[in-house]
């Protein structure tokens, strides 16, 4: 059991680098200067002090390794985090992305010296265009939200080109990710929220009433964040397009649709894809990702710079960068997150067409299996077949036992499972959004189902156990209000002396 020494050791394991610093220690070696020393510039320009830690290499490795153990991760835990597609990240992806010919090339090298990299980019462009049935892809956006911004800037440029400056309103369903309205505003639009009908589809009457001369477009996630395929989707895209609007597709949930339907065939004008979701690039604890923007015929000339095109000249193939005619410009200084693109490239080539198609089949079967097995224990707000994820509600537990979705989530941690997405989408009370992905086995799903049923029973028999969960993590629940009220955002010297 616990002892004062044990608590002290626990605390010390969390000590920050600056508090471990000892003058004179070094964590790296550098070569000696091998050229004649020149005069340093005026001392006015030189800093007096550089307050960085002085720690040895072994201490650094042990420190970071120890704190890494406080994380849940795909490599270590089932991670059914809805709308995030936490699938297994194949190791070959990382190996290929770090090959020296990929990791040691400079973004401003002449195209002729990076033909292999450009071919990787070109292949990924082609595959995404084919998978989504669109007209062209630009891989430079560095995250899903960045792809959204690019797509909405393209919509803006399209309307301005046609002299329709009054098209300012973007419709966004009430179930959408928060990035959608935030991106629309950054692209200069105003947002109007669109309700869902009682089956979780877009409310067509509300949509018809909302479209008009000031309609810029619609941003919609397919399948929706309820995990449902909108049965009205063809009507939705037609109504928006007939009214002169652009249809934006948030591709966060593309993992449900691979080989089953192409978004281009459904009337989308522009979409983004999250390579860190559908195409298995690791999430990295919150990035890096990549959010390619993929355009249909109406918007393809507005894609950001740059694209890679393939030319054949006398049997010799060359790849080169180009910028579309009416491009919205640059989304970043360089050509996007190439290291992430190389991983997605590896994944697509590993699986091939048949493998890509089977992803969605397995993802959807896994989600529906969980839906079927857990609908007796948790409320199911929409009683219909789901796609790659299923949204439950803990409102029955809340009403009957005073146990919230948060309590259920935290108790799952005790059983070694990462919590589902909670309280999202906003339109489902006490929402628990479960996305198993295709990379989990039936055995893992059955274990998860047992755990969830047990937690539901515990909610009735011992609600206190859930309120106090998690019990075995290095920290119990955190005081988030305190963090926001008294922001402590950086290390400071502990003895009151200023830096």
């Amino acid at each position, binding site marked *: 059991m616990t002892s004062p020494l044990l608590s002290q050791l626990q605390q010390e394991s969390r000590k920050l680098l600056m508090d471990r610093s000892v003058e004179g220690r070094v964590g790296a070696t550098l070569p000696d200067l091998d050229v004649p020393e020149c005069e340093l510039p005026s001392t006015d320009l030189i800093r007096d002090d550089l307050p960085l830690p002085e720690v040895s290499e072994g201490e650094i490795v042990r420190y970071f390794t120890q704190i890494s153990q406080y994380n849940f991760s795909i490599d270590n835990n089932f991670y059914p985090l809805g709308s995030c597609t936490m699938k297994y990240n194949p190791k*070959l992806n990382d190996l290929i992305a770090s090959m020296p010919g990929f990791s040691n*090339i400079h973004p401003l090298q002449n195209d002729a010296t990076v033909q292999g990299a450009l071919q990787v980019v070109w292949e990924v462009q082609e595959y995404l265009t084919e998978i989504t049935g669109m007209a062209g892809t630009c891989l430079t956006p560095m*995250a899903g939200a960045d792809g959204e911004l690019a797509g909405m800037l393209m919509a803006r440029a399209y309307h301005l080109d046609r002299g329709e400056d009054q098209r300012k309103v973007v419709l966004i369903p009430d179930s959408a990710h928060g990035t959608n*309205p935030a991106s629309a505003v950054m692209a200069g639009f105003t947002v109007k929220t669109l309700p869902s009908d009682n089956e979780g589809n877009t409310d067509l009457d509300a949509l018809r009433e909302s479209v008009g001369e000031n309609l810029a477009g619609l941003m919609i996630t397919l399948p929706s964040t309820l995990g449902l395929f909108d049965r009205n989707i063809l009507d939705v895209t037609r109504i928006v397009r007939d009214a002169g609007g652009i249809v934006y597709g948030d591709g966060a949930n593309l993992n449900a649709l691979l080989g089953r339907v192409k978004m281009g065939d459904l009337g989308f004008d522009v979409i983004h894809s999250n390579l860190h979701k559908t195409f298995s690039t690791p999430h990295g604890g919150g990035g890096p990702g990549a959010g390619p923007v993929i355009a249909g015929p109406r918007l393809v000339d507005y894609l950001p710079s740059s694209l890679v095109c393939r030319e054949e000249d006398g049997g010799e193939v060359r790849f080169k960068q180009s910028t579309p005619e009416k491009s919205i410009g640059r989304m970043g200084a360089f050509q996007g997150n190439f290291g992430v693109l190389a991983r997605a490239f590896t994944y697509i080539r*590993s699986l091939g067409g048949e493998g*890509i198609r089977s992803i969605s089949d397995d993802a959807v079967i896994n989600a529906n299996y969980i839906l079927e097995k857990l609908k007796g224990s948790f409320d199911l707000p929409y009683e219909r077949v789901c796609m790659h994820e299923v949204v439950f509600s803990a409102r029955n537990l809340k009403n009957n036992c005073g146990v919230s979705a948060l309590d259920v989530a935290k108790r799952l941690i005790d059983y070694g499972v990462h919590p589902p997405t909670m309280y999202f989408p906003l339109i489902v009370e006490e929402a628990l959004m479960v996305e198993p992905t295709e990379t989990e086995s039936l055995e893992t799903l059955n274990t998860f189902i047992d755990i969830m049923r047990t937690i539901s029973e515990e909610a009735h028999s011992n609600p206190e156990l859930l309120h106090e969960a998690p019990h075995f993590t290095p920290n119990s*629940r955190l005081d988030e209000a305190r963090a926001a009220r008294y922001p402590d955002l950086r290390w400071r010297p502990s003895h009151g002396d200023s830096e």
Partner: protein
Amino acid sequence: MPSPFTPNTEEHRKKMLDAIGMDSVEGLFSDIPEEVRNPDLNLPKAMSELDLRAYASELSARNVSAGEYTSFLGAGSYWHHIPAVVSSIASRGEFMTAYTPYQPEVSQGTLQVAYEFQSMICQLTGMDVANAGMYDGSTSLAEAALMACRVTRKNKVAILDSTSPLYTEVLDTYVQAPGIALELVKAHNISLEEDTACLIVQQPNFFGYLEDMQTLSNIAHDAGALLVVSVDPVSLGMFNPPSEYGADIVVAEGQGIGVPMSYGGPYVGIFACRQEFVRQMPGRIVGKTLDTHGKEAYVLTLQAREQHIRREHATSNICTSVALISLMTTVYLACMGKQGMRKVAELCYHKAHYAASLIENIPGFSILESGNGVFFREFTVRCPIPPEEINQLLLEKGIIGGLDVSNYLENALLLCVTEMNSREDIENLAKTLREIGES
């Protein structure tokens, strides 16, 4: 062959479909309109790991890479030594395969690293607060301009013409939609109007030279504008931090401190500012708090700025903090520490000056000056022939040359020298330039 990434077999699928009450998987997709369901998918066939490694090796070998060649190319992405510890830590599954730390009890590793990152960025830049990371240096700069407009409630942004043109292009993409005016200004002739939200300066500037920051800072502040500085973090190993000359917002590209060039990404954007602006910052911020047992712990905080809470009223749409890359820079800064950062900066400084001293003695070549005339690890050379031709000739000798900046200055070549370039490399570059000049 079945895929190694999907464990369920045909038998499992059948069992699960039985449980669901479906005859076949087709039934699960019946909400998709029939006329567009099950399209052709024209993709290549699956490859085994063995074949794919060979194919990727072949593509990788088709690139001319730094290390195989020596490189003098910088201009926003830099070839620096990265200690082995960095990739060893960053490739740990616990860091690499975790999600955004929304559940703090199972994310203390990621969160503590972010707090370390924020702390070290504050220490390096001298600023009060930093966020957990942005996409890259250029988008950090664009977000700083948007934030300056929010803070000052003004709608015009001035940017010094010695800033990276690539960064200026990104800024232009960001400011058009919200209707912010962008004005390119020259250091020697600035008059800021009252409606200017900020003056943006790159330090050292795009051509490698330090700007006279105190003067520029006074000009900005006298006009009621903020000073936004896009700084090179490696230069901060020896040069004054931006806090010394009154910067209000500091942004930077973090690639140079521990991140491979990787053909342009993933990188991490650094974003720091004065305490009073903290609630107007974009991006993730991690704070220290207590758990229910009174133990210290870390958590995402000040989330009332962010898209998942504030939706259309958020300070930005950004969700990522590029956590894995911020981890790499954190480990790098820990390894380098106080002594190493100073040493890297000095190695760059001395080697760049040695290279410049050799090149300025070659007939036909001269060193151009801008800013206050002091350069760090990059400098601009005027060449006797177009830099494009020079770079081609260098390439034939196993040298990746500099950036052709003849669009901005006639026949100008921007060269970069770091600790990766040995004396022999530098002398070989000078020798080759001399041969080119003579022929």
